[in-house]
């Protein structure tokens, strides 16, 4: 009966919020206040349980990969599609999708969790499986310290009941994996995803960036991870799983997305190899081969603005979200700047990160040959100053995104284009661009 009331109230609030043009998480707030156990009850009824995805970079795209691979195997997946990380966003999504009796029409939940708000979530719901991607300096004005972020992720691992997938190339995440293996009571299974030794040098971590000139280190042969990325090409990759090398084309772009695909593969394998939870005699376990999983991966497109390609004025326009130094560095490294007109838009609202210091941990020299056509955002001049320090020529500076977009379009008529932007700048630009071209609904 309780679920009935909560679901109906939540759905009503959502209708009202939509009519008023309100945000996506308001219904969640209402239900949460009325019925704090709603989310836990709804999710506890799923035959495959709950998968949590957390870490600094790549959560949204990796969550999307996991969802699409599970759907390709015939599972019905509940996920927080709007990318709103917070618990309220998850509850809001649940309210939207459940029946009036509070039953979700799904086999499994795959939820993207922001490190800090995850604490609120894990108090109510213990994930059956968790994927931890990385810990990077990001939004230091929210967390203050990388170690603090790592501790939060450890707590998510501590709350996980059956399976944990960790990035063996990230020192802090790998340590969480070790701690979890050593858990005294009912430790979950721990698997890793990783890179071959050959690829390890192409992924500079924040530690490496500041170590200065690379010391030639001979890496010992390491055992395979559960899924290892062994080769990387232009829109293609080779993954090693159970000793077998599987090659695939990819719609995903960028070094980071391809490495996260290894994370997604490992997580999906874990979910599909686990038994159905008790209490679901009718549920059939979905079987799969690694080859089929990799084939499903080939169809996944990048998520909401994280390397999204639009068509503008008959030319491709890449929108690249940048949130922190590692992400910006890889965003620059994984795209060839030659012949491409570049715009950079840096805002400093809460969701973008308010401290501009992070721009100084990115090397922009790769843009110096072509220059940057337009710089925009509330911190356009800080960005222009940063570029000046790397001798990158800047065409025009316009704090206003509309003015900048206009100048960018008229200044680069017959060229492919790329815009690097922080989160709120991305949202604002997508709105402007939706008037000009086809912009996909948030996946």
């Amino acid at each position, binding site marked *: 009966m309780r679920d009935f009331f909560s679901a109906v109230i939540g759905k009503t609030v959502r209708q009202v919020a939509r009519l008023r043009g309100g945000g996506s998480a308001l219904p969640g707030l209402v239900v949460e206040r009325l019925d704090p156990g709603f989310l836990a009850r709804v999710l506890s009824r799923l035959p495959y349980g709950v998968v949590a995805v957390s870490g600094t970079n790549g959560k949204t795209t990796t969550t999307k990969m996991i969802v699409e691979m599970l759907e390709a195997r015939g599972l019905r997946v509940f996920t927080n599609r709007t990318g709103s990380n917070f618990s309220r966003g998850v509850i809001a999504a649940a309210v939207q999708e459940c029946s009036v009796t509070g039953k979700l029409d799904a086999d499994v939940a795959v939820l993207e969790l922001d490190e800090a708000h995850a604490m609120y979530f894990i108090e109510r719901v213990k994930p059956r499986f968790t994927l931890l991607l990385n810990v990077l300096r990001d939004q230091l004005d929210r967390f203050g310290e990388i170690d603090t972020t790592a501790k939060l992720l450890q707590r998510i691992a501590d709350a996980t009941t059956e399976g944990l997938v960790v990035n063996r190339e990230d020192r802090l995440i790998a340590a969480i994996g070790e701690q979890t293996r050593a858990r005294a009571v009912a430790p979950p299974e721990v698997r890793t995803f990783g890179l071959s030794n050959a690829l390890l040098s192409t992924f500079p971590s924040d530690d490496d960036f500041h170590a200065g000139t690379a010391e030639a280190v001979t890496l010992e042969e390491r055992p395979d991870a559960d899924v290892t990325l062994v080769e990387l090409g232009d829109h293609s990759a080779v993954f090693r799983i159970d000793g077998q090398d599987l090659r695939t084309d990819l719609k995903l772009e960028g070094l980071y997305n391809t490495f996260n695909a290894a994370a997604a593969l490992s997580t999906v394998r874990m979910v599909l190899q686990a038994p159905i939870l008790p209490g679901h005699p009718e549920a059939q376990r979905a079987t799969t081969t690694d080859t089929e999983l990799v084939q499903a991966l080939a169809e996944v497109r990048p998520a909401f603005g994280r390397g999204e390609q639009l068509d503008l004025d008959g030319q491709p326009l890449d929108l690249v979200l940048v949130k922190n130094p590692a992400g910006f560095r890889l965003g620059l490294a994984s795209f060839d700047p030659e012949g491409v007109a570049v715009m950079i838009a840096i805002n400093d609202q809460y969701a973008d990160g*308010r401290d501009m210091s992070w721009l100084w*941990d990115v090397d922009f020299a790769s843009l110096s040959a072509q220059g940057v056509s337009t710089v925009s955002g509330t911190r*356009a001049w800080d960005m222009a100053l940063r570029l000046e320090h790397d001798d990158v020529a800047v065409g025009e500076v316009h704090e206003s995104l509309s003015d900048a977009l206009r100048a960018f379009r008229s200044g680069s008529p017959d060229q492919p284009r790329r815009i690097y932007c922080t989160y709120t700048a991305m949202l604002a630009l997508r709105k402007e661009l939706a008037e000009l071209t086809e912009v996909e609904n948030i996946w």
Partner: protein
Amino acid sequence: MSDNPELLIASLYPRDMNIYGDRGNVLSLARRARAQGFTPRVVDVNPGDALPEQLDIVIGGGGQDSGQSRVAKDLAQRAATIQDLATDGTPMLMVCGLYQLFGHRFITNTGDELVGIGVLDVETRGGEERMIGNIVLDSEQFGEIIGYENHSGDTTLGSGSRPLGRVTQGAGNNPRDGVEGARTANVIGTYLHGSLLPKNPAISDFLIAEAATRRYGSFTPIAAEDNTVLRARESAKRRPR
């Protein structure tokens, strides 16, 4: 090879103390030195490395508490050398974690004490309140100083150091005193990130001028005013806390 006179900049602990973008200070100082007619040479000094024999400027940044413990030990071993350099008038800029360690001590939240080298007359306690946001200072020597602070260290000045500036927006060394940073001789300590020097070239010019005068006998500024810096300062000042 250049005919321009050299200035050697020692960058302290870039590997351990690098979390807050303070690398920007090294980049900006080197660039400003070039604009002022010098050839800068930057030498990284990580734990265990020798300090260069003839150095002109020393600069260091902020890091995590864990990085700070690692460098505190190494710094303690260099205490006498650095104190001598400071007393002799060597210009230095220490930000955040190294600002704290250039003081007498840093007492953490849990009561552990990290001993500093006492070049600046300050003491820091790990506090409850995080002082975080855009910050603007007013200073006699450098005019307005614009940056971003992010620290829970609560720092107080003794009589041997004067502040870097008076806070006109933000917190500063602690929530009570209304001042930020510390100065003794030619050593500046501050919590300001941003990074600090790119938007505040007056501070770079001070470090360069002192270094040049000490080494070459005199200094004549030749760098032109930079419009990008001016615009960045104007817009950063207008940003909310």
